[in-house]
């Protein structure tokens, strides 16, 4: 047993070079730089709650698809045009992003009405790195507002998921 072991060790010693030639292999380092996400309001688009008589109050609802309807005593007048708002989002193709829209109010300088927005929580940029975000909302009408044109603003924020 002992002799065999010594023989093996001697054999191993002969087969191992004292100093082997250096060996080299290639490594690869990788990274992908993606476009930052951006959002722009589409020219001419707006979240419009149309033209209505307040009655004793209620709400005007505009869907993300742009369909308007009234609740309570509010009455949309004939020819009223309700529209959803529209934004263009650009960034990295096929990447998902989150959307958040703030609420806001509209005013005619005397009275104001508040609205909440309705938007998808998230979406995905298409193969060209573009997506459209539509915003609907619900306007609360007290029934005591003076007549006139009411305007206001709200903010929309997008971020990569």
């Amino acid at each position, binding site marked *: 047993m002992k002799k065999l072991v010594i023989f093996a060790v001697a054999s191993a010693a002969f087969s*191992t070079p004292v100093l082997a030639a250096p060996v*080299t292999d*290639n490594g690869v*380092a990788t*990274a992908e730089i*993606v476009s930052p996400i951006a959002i722009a309001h589409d020219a001419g688009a707006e979240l419009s709650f149309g033209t209505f008589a307040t009655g004793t109050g209620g709400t005007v609802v505009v869907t993300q698809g742009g369909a308007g309807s009234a609740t309570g005593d509010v009455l949309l007048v004939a020819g009223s045009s309700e529209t959803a708002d529209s934004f263009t989002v650009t960034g990295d193709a096929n990447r998902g992003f989150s959307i958040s829209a703030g609420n806001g109010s509209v005013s005619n300088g005397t009275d104001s009405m508040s609205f909440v927005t309705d938007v998808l929580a998230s979406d995905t940029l298409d193969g060209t790195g573009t997506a459209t975000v539509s915003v609907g909302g619900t306007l609360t009408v007290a029934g005591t507002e003076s007549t006139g044109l009411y305007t206001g603003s709200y903010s929309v924020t997008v971020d*990569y998921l």
Partner: protein
Amino acid sequence: MRITRHALLAGALALAGVPSGLQAAATTSGAGRAEVVIPGQIQALEDMRFGAIVRPVGASTVTVAPNGAVSATGEIAANLNIPQPPEGRGPARFRLDGTERRAFVALLPSSITLSNGGATMQVRNITSNLPRLLNRFDASGLFFLNIGGTLEVNGGQQTGQYSGEFDVTVIFL
């Protein structure tokens, strides 16, 4: 003498593995697997992966440590957790086949240039999991070398897929 003691120990282990009592005959098939390696080799296993990075306005960095920890500076830090490609982020990995107790030295690049064909970025501060300059293989005769670094992303860096090659040389002493 030390070698002899090892041999005797191995013999004892082999004896212990033999069942002492009589058992009913039972047969099953076992799986055989063998891998032949040539000692004194290096083999790349994984790339150094910095993953998907949102283009910053100002110069920012992403660091991948040899242990896989990822950190960032500048604007990239705020967007570090965006979904990553399937391979994820991580250090480069190499398999070194040596022999037990043999000493070796690994030569790492001082920097790596990544290109997308048009623009370039640099990886600097290359780090590894080598404990010291001169290292020794343990009883397994294997060492898995992990290499990380800091990717320097320029402000307004061109978008695209970047890659770059680097050499790792091992001298078996």
